[in-house]
């Protein structure tokens, strides 16, 4: 579904990604972790072309992201993305947030788009908030709306860029619950996150990044059992201490 082959990216002389390669199969859930500045958010943004890269190749569902001929908008329409800071559109009601791209990108009618949006809102437990504005919701609610907004486009896979790191602790669970449901339904997911509980529960593989490199790319059991690299061991011991 997603294959990343030897991708490198630099800003001037600063190397953000060095020779990253991995594969995500259909229905697989991959958690990408690593210290801040390790390039994990950049890597995930390369997958839908939000960040350009200079070397290597990323192919999503048979379409090469880096190819200048690729219509990125068309590709992105079917690759859902959830951001750290939710990024709902503050001037639109929740149901318009869910409908706008369905109407403008997929060409659905307004009724159809609103209807589909409402179904997904119900799925994330927020059907009562449809007429509210993002600024009137809690962070956890906003992130669940953002997930519903991405799902409304019928994505073939979902990218999550630190979906819980801007949330108050008591709201993390409500967002993770939605993500666990999605994973269990077989959605292909690439999740940048430090939520190791989530990784243990639903991830198939865990990728550990450091200084722009993929240091470890292992099945979950292996990663949590005994990570091969010392750097990953250190990292895990730090974040699992608490």
């Amino acid at each position, binding site marked *: 579904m997603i294959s990343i082959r030897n991708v490198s990216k630099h800003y001037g002389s600063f190397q953000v990604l060095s020779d990253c390669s991995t594969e995500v199969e259909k229905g697989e859930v991959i958690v990408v972790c690593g210290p801040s500045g390790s390039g994990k958010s950049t890597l995930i*943004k390369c997958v*839908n072309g*939000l960040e350009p890269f200079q070397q290597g190749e990323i192919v999503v569902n048979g379409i090469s992201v880096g190819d200048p001929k690729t219509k*990125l*908008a*068309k590709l*992105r*329409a*079917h*690759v*859902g*993305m959830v*951001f*750290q*800071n939710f*990024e*709902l*559109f*503050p*001037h639109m009601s929740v149901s318009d947030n869910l409908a*706008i*791209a369905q109407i*403008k*990108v*997929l060409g659905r009618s307004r009724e159809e788009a609103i209807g589909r949006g409402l179904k997904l809102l119900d799925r994330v437990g927020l059907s009562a908030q449809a007429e*509210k*504005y*993002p*600024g*009137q*919701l809690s962070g956890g609610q906003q992130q669940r709306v953002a997930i519903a*907004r*991405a799902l409304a*486009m019928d994505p073939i896979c979902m990218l999550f860029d630190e979906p819980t790191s801007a949330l108050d602790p008591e709201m993390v669970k409500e967002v993770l619950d939605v993500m666990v449901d999605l994973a269990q339904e077989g959605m292909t997911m690439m999740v940048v996150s430090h939520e190791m509980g989530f990784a243990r529960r639903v991830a198939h593989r865990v990728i550990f990044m450091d200084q722009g490199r993929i240091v470890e790319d292992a099945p979950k059991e292996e990663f949590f059992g005994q990570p091969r690299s010392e750097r990953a061991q250190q990292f895990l011991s730090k974040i699992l201490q608490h």
Partner: protein
Amino acid sequence: MGYHWNWGIFLAQVPSGGTSYLGWMLSGLMTTLALSLSAWIIALVIGSAMGVLRTVPNRWLSGIGALYVELFRNIPLLVQLFIWYFVLPELLPERLGNAYKEINPLLQQFTAAMICLGLFTGARVCEQVRSGIDSLPRGQRLAGLALGLSGPQTYRYVLLPMAFRIIVPPLTSEFLNIFKNSAVASTIGLLELAAQGRQLVDYTAQPYESFIAVTLTFMLLNALIMSLMHRLEARVRVPGQGGHHG
């Protein structure tokens, strides 16, 4: 002070007949309104387009926006007006230039002043629009693009609606400025409000009444615009987005 106040002067007939001095003032007011509003439309359209250009991720396009701002913001308004009115018609191709000179002189003055004020204010609007867009979180643009919206759609549906809401207060002050700046059009002979005030002084030797009337009219006009813009600001306020500052 031996000044002889005479507020009745406004009702007196002008020497050429047909109207009163009040009629002159009102016709000046109408010209000021027509000039300022038409220039404001130009300023909003050009300023928004250029402001958007300044924020697109393309060096050439944003360069066009930057060039526009530098050009129109750094030349004094009065000089720009003289260039539009006196210099530019001479630079037009001969046939076009002659055609221009044959149209009604009032229309020539009005057109030059409208284009001049519009483009001058547009450069300032451009900077407001740019700063409005730049003040939005970077993720907003990414979120629009990630949903499959095109670049222009992302501006149209995501960035500009919020950017314009944010810049209502500075735009209000540009809107007020355009009315005040429209008085420079009197220097090329356009009989707007300030020019009519001066003409009244020339004819009646009642400068205080005349300029008090002109001043009060400008102040009233500005108060009216401020209240309209406040109403607009309240109307487009986004629920849950905090209140109004300043």
